[in-house]
């Protein structure tokens, strides 16, 4: 996150774009978001993992599209009117890549101060949770802030089952937090 604007440094807060997936609200740093598009059919890539839906032509650039539900191992949902593709810029192996992620719907843009972000609880599975930046409370909702570079950048994601459990646990956590 090299490019943070001056105001944000002054205020010590960052803006996040939040989106909904399986009734859960997630946030990504808005500076990594390039644009938001509707779902459009993709060109399927041979022998790609399930969560890679294919590639699209984004004004002359070939951009892969990743279904975040599938990446997380959540049951897939038929793409509908609210389904959106968030095109993000991520840094992988020191090069910048543009990738689209399919989510159920976009929700909001909000500012969170650095000290408001709580560490994700340790679930004791020895699982690498570095792709979760932390948890934040926004208007009595819990938002899971994602470290998008790590999430898309490598195969650090735990297997879908563990991940599912973690997300379930996070939900319980949220209920504790909002209670």
């Amino acid at each position: 996150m090299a490019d943070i604007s001056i105001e944000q440094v002054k205020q010590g807060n960052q803006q996040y774009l939040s989106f909904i997936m399986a009734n859960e609200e997630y946030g990504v740093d808005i500076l990594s978001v390039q644009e938001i598009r509707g779902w459009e059919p993709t060109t399927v890539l041979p022998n790609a993992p399930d969560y890679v839906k294919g590639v699209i032509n984004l004004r002359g650039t070939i951009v892969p599209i990743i279904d975040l539900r599938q990446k997380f191992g959540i049951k897939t949902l038929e793409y509908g009117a609210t389904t959106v593709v968030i095109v993000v810029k991520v840094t992988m192996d020191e090069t910048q890549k543009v990738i689209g992620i399919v989510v159920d719907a976009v929700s909001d843009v909000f500012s969170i101060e650095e000290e408001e972000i709580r560490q994700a609880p340790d679930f004791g599975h020895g699982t690498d949770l570095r792709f979760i930046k932390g948890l934040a409370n926004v208007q009595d909702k819990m938002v899971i802030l994602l470290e998008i570079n790590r999430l898309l950048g490598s195969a650090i994601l735990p297997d879908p089952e563990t991940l599912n459990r973690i997300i379930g646990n996070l939900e319980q956590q949220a209920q504790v937090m909002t209670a």
Partner: protein
Amino acid sequence: MDIDLSQFSQVFFEESIEGLAIMESELLKLDVAAPDPETINTIFRAAHSIKGGSATFGFMQVANYTHLLETLLDEIRDGRRQMQPDHVDMLLLSVDLLRGMFEALMSQAEFNDPKLSELELRLNHTLSNQPSQTQSVSSPQALSGSDSKALCWQIDFKAGADIMRCGNDPMLMFAELASKGTLTTELLPVSLPSWDDFDPEACYLHWRLRLTTDEPLEKLKEVFEWVEDECEISYQQMEAVPSADAPTEMLSPSPQAEIDAPAAAPEVIALAPEVQTLSTDKAAASQKQNAVAAKSGESSSIRVSTEKIDMLINMVGELVITQAMLGQIGQQDEINQESLLLLQQGLEQLASHTRDLQESVMQIRMLPISFAFNRFPRLVRDIGQQLGKKVELILKGEDTELDKTVLEKIVDPMVHLVRNSLDHGLESPELRLAQGKSETGTIMLNAYHQGGCIIIEIVDDGAGLNTRKILEKARQKGIVGPDEELSEEAIHQLIFKPGFSTADAVSDLSGRGVGMDVVKRNIHELNGSIELKSEAGKGSRFTIRLPLTLAILDGQLIRIGKHIYVVPLVSIYESLQVPTNRINRLSDGHELIRLRDEYLPVIKMYREFNHDADAREIKDGLVMVVDHNNEKTGLLVDELLAQQQVVIKSLEENYTRIPGISGATILGDGTVALIIDVAGLVKLAGIGSSNEHAA
């Protein structure tokens, strides 16, 4: 006055490297016995502009070195010195060294090649008019005593206050002095004016310079010619060992007398290497400063003739007119028959202009193949000398243009082929005479366009391939069965197999692992092909066929289920429907088709790609026969669609490599289609390379 020169250094590097290429090619053309004055002039001019530029940019190592070359060339040019073969050798080696220096400068690295000091000594030695028979001078000691004219001068230089304002930079003058010998500079204490009177543009400095040189005093004075009225300059001849406290002695103002008076030369020389290190350190420091800009622009720029740019500008002008015309039609309230006609005309114009524009833009990337050919005269000369062979190199079609990216990648395979021709192809002069051939062998490089491709031929009139030896070797290696008989052509193809070398002994030049298989693979990676024709005793001819550009590809669109792929047209032989009676199933499940007298394996693309497909059996679909390393393979597809030129886009930019796919392109409707990598697909399907089933 403070201009950041580093922004121009990239251009300077490019020009200098071009200059070096000119020097090299002219040197190779040079007839030592009767040198053409114009050729020597050209070489001199190239060296001169490199020297001038490098001094301006502060690349003192280059400047000092080119100064030596320039002096030598100047003497030859003026007829003061007779050209000798040794000179050409030295100059060619110098070109190599300078290339190395520029490469080091561009990558901000230090340049320490031990050859530099050796060659520098050799040049100095030659310049000091010693007989040049003693070819290499390896130690500085060997020189002592020879360079007896070297003198040490102490120059006190008090700059006039206005010197900078008049555009004279003492630094440049010192650099010029440094190019005449070894220079040390010392800044003498000066009294600066009070802050209120201080003029930031004025120069208040006073230097003491010590120069060890064999140039006459007049030459040194020339350096300060422009400023001698404004500055206080005094020249003193020094004792041989210049030290700050050494007593100095004023000279009488008649310079001619002193020049002939020899100083205590041995000591001067002994000291020189030490001082030299000082000046190289300085050069290294300025290298670092200037290379910053160079690093980013390395070889990513291109020099384009203004003619091509003019064409582009014209084309864009036309496009703007067409756009205005279409805009006008668009503003009309109603569309009638007449405006519809105009609209159609406009659109046609637009299409034609867009096509022209695309062509012109592609033209910008096109460079004449002489950029690749130029290195061969030198290569052939050096290797020919090394092997004791007499060779004449003929270059044809040097103006043939091809894409920069292709050009850069074709050089290595070509070098390999030419080396092969020299090493294995051409016979020794004695053998040639014995065979009734002329003593001098010829190697011809020829480039020409043929139907959207560029053809490069490498032809020699040497011995040709030794089919018997190749077959023997192949039997030894088990590539060919002991009783298997092959046609001559099939035997020739064997040299493209990995690990195949027919050289009797591993020579210095070839046969060290990198073989023709690598050449072939490199050419295939460029979507090209290579053919070989050889006749015993007459010579060999390699024909490389390449696409003109790597950015655009002639493709055949194919359909598998609902997926559309592009297959490069160059790798397609033919497409056909195969009747059931020509399909054979092997026990391992692989299927073969019989095509004339060949059996080809068939890859079911839907299976390799995990796709749905209409045709799941060979008889239901079309088999497209593709070429991979001269081995034919069938691809099962549902349907052939249009043929069209496609612009290649990278998949790896935002995703990763996919086996069997070389890239992507965007079709007319804006959707993405993937381009098939035939070699990768064959590998993916696990079809071994030994699939010849000659019937």
